[in-house]
């Protein structure tokens, strides 16, 4: 049997960052006490009617432009009918034949080079509520806070053939949606969700194999693991001469395996039909142009600007744009102190190190861009010794104090005191006759030892340049 080749397509759901829900004026914020963010409309009371939130429409158009989609000049909404306790109207307002966005593409980078993934469509719909199963009381409780949060569904063509490609694509979609400022893309909170359709067949086979749909994927990593598992599972079945069953499967993060959620026989007939409560939208060219122009600078544009205008290396630019919150922090710091290279160095160094160590998070940050900008400025202008960045930044994070206050309290400011410098360095030289001999015999590398000693003794109260000059002068004897 020839090698089996996976074919994968995605359905990605992204919650839009509008202030209010898509068909009523309730807050669309994440969380809240159960059923505290509901009204007669989103809880489906008799007689209520949906009113389309035009900001949500604007956001999906923006999303469509970032993925190179055609925007339908005529778009309308349909009802997807099915019974489920988290769906108060027993139909979801969605879009079937006339979605807002069609025929786009997104380019991704993989270890085998660049690849273009085609987008079939993106449509705007409403999210459902959440069910909470209480084992203690054996009851199922419904929370409708999430009902009516605007959701876009991005449907790709089956253009993926590996977990790597899929993961790269999701990361790319995240960047696009975050930079367009339409979704916060938090997979763990469910604001970005991904369903995977995967089938296996011999390469270049005329027909794709029978597919399974995998749900409940809460991270990019889980998507990758689920795909690897499905490839393994389906390969086992097919190589043993069996048949893959068309069904929906759920992935378990703890076992790393997928299991049957519902079979094809349980599939709903959604009885789609045009929603008579929502008039279709007809866009004018001017409206679409205005939305396109309102798109913020995208990640790719920022990266190019950093490389062209600031001379950043590609790898550094990539690292900076990879997280929009960090990149925005950088941009805001530049507004206070416009020295891109030294601010970048601080961000890539001390700043990212603390994030990677888990000592800080962009979600609840104690430091402001202004404070970081000032800190770097003090280092650049020899107000402080850069060796003290670490101590000062750590204290900024821990105490929330400004760099100025921390330097005051710890006496970190550089002193313009030549006598002190001369005295301290004189002592170091006097106390280390051995290394002095070595240096004078031409062993340049012991200079580093003296720098270290001097820094330690001076606690950063002199700049490295001043120390170097004084050391060189004194060592020459």
């Amino acid at each position, binding site marked *: 049997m020839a090698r089996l080749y996976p074919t994968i397509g995605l359905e990605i759901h992204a919650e839009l960052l509008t202030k209010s829900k898509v068909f009523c004026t309730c807050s669309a914020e994440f969380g809240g006490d159960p059923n505290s963010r509901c009204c007669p409309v989103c809880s489906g009371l*008799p007689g209520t009617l*949906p009113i389309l939130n035009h900001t949500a429409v604007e956001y999906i158009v923006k999303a469509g432009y970032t993925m190179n989609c055609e925007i339908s000049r005529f778009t309308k909404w349909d009802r997807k009918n099915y019974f489920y306790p988290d769906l108060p109207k027993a139909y979801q307002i969605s879009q079937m034949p006339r979605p807002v966005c069609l025929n786009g593409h997104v380019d991704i980078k993989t270890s085998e080079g660049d690849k273009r993934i085609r987008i079939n469509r993106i449509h705007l719909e409403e999210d459902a509520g959440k069910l909470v199963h209480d084992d203690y009381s054996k009851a199922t409780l419904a929370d409708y806070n999430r009902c009516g949060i605007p959701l876009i569904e991005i449907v790709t063509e089956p253009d993926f053939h590996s977990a790597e490609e899929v993961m790269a694509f999701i990361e790319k979609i995240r960047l696009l949606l975050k930079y367009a400022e339409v979704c916060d893309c938090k997979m763990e909170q469910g604001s970005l969700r991904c369903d995977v359709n995967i089938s296996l067949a011999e390469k270049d086979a005329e027909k794709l194999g029978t597919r399974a749909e995998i749900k409940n994927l809460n991270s990019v990593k889980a998507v990758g693991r689920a795909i690897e598992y499905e490839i393994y599972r389906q390969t086992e079945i097919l190589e043993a001469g069996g048949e893959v069953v068309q069904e929906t499967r759920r992935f378990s993060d703890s076992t790393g395996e997928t299991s049957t959620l519902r079979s094809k026989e349980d599939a709903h007939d959604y009885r789609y039909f045009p929603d008579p*409560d929502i008039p279709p939208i007809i866009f004018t060219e001017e409206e679409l142009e205005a939305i396109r122009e309102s798109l913020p600078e995208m990640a790719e544009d920022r990266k190019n600007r950093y490389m062209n205008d600031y001379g950043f290396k590609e790898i550094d630019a990539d690292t900076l744009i990879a997280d929009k919150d960090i990149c925005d922090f950088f941009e805001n710091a530049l507004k206070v102190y416009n020295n891109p290279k030294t601010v970048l160095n601080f961000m890539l160094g001390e700043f990212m190190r603390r994030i990677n160590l888990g000592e800080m998070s962009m979600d609840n940050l104690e430091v402001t861009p202004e404070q970081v900008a000032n800190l770097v400025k003090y280092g650049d202008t020899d107000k402080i010794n850069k060796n003290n960045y670490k101590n000062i930044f750590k204290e900024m994070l821990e105490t929330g104090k400004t760099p100025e206050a921390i330097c005051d309290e710890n006496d970190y400011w550089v002193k313009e005191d030549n006598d002190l410098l001369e005295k301290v360095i004189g002592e170091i030289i006097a106390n280390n006759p051995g290394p002095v001999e070595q240096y004078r015999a031409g062993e340049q590398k012991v200079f580093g030892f003296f720098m270290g000693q001097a820094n330690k003794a001076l606690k950063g109260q002199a700049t490295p340049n001043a120390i170097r000059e004084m050391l060189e002068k004194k060592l020459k004897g």
Partner: protein
Amino acid sequence: MDLKNTTVASLRKMLDSKEIGAAELAKEFIGEIKDKDSKVLSYITVTEENALSAAEKAQAVIDGGKATALTGIPLAIKDNICTDGVKTTCSSKMLEDFVPPYNATVIEKLNAENYVMLGKTSMDEFAMGGSNQTSAFAKTKNPYNTECVPGGSSGGSAAAVSAGLCAAALGSDTGGSIRQPASFCGVTGLKPTYGRVSRYGLVAFASSLDQIGPIARTAEDCGIILNAVAGVDAHDATSKNVPFTDFNGKIGESLKGMKIALPKEFYSDAVDEEVKNAVMAAAKEYEKMGAELVDCSISSLKYAVPAYYLIASAEAASNLSRYDGIKYGLRGEGRSFEEMIRDSRSRGFGEEVKRRILLGNYALSSGYYDAYYRKALALKQEIIKEYNDVFEKADVILTPTAPSVAYKIGAQDNDPVKMYTADICTVTVNIASLPAINTTCGYDKNGMPIGMSIVGKRFDEATLIQTADAFEKTFSPVRCTL
């Protein structure tokens, strides 16, 4: 006081001149309801306390010289229009105890005028039916003959107006549900243009066809109420911003030169002779007033009933899905939520509602959509086109409202298709989003009222009221003797 002949317009004068107080007026009607409604069964809920406190408030407004057209006027509201804090049942066991936490837009508008709500009127369950006999609670009877149906689905509102149990009422019309009961009960009922009145708070039957409208004793009264409830609404995206000043503004203008079209399909053998004769007599009356009668044809009428029942049932099947026992309404039992939903819906809905849900879901099912629903939408376009053509050469259209007068209770119980066919004269108006008014044009040999419908161009309610009013001024109504 002769409540059966008292119009809203005359009550306004009496209230403003202090000939009667608002509380006294409300009490008169409440007393009449207590006396007579046991024979008619027009109300599901009588809101006596609310009515009296609203009347006191209205009196203060009148005394302050700030009265508007409906201040202190006692009205009845169909029980599918949501009233904050007052049960809204849709005549269904499903919503037997449902108390909305909000007001429909029309109720907010009436409240702004300080009207007095007397209660909520019975109807066919979820507005599905033409007899009021599908109501789970009050199977309303015709005030002219309590062995006959009052029509439906706004049969409670029409019977209450006819029997003098309110000054006027609000109904809703999806396929004739204002005009047909108005016809059977000998009163005037106006179905406004789709989009003229907000549907927010009207429990949906068929969203693309539903429209709230007034039922009253005269066309002028209908205009007064429409003035109060019409207008674009931020809560209803299908409501239209078509400005108006006064729907009664054309009352009294001459009909000279007005072109009245009589589409021949509406005068076929399917319509009783006595009905046809009465409507034709009215047409002659219009001719005497200077109007010109124009022959015309709406050949798609033969497809109207099937197209209507497909569209309306499809939308209804979806609209009624929310009654699953989970959030409100009747809750059944079961070991899983599927079982619980099934039990809730089996017990909560009556036979007619179930029939239409089945029909609608069938029509929308995969594989049948193109054969049924899509064809019905195509017919809708054809019907709209034919009406547009007629309105190229006529100002209004005159038809019978129903093929017969009110029939005996039970007469059509076992033949839903026959009952559906009786909607032939009314459904095209909803499909084409047009306004239409029913007014009484005669009585049959048994004294049962015969109604005629005047259909107008979109948003031309003023001409309908003018035309109906012109006839009413020549006509002496015979009120029921209840």
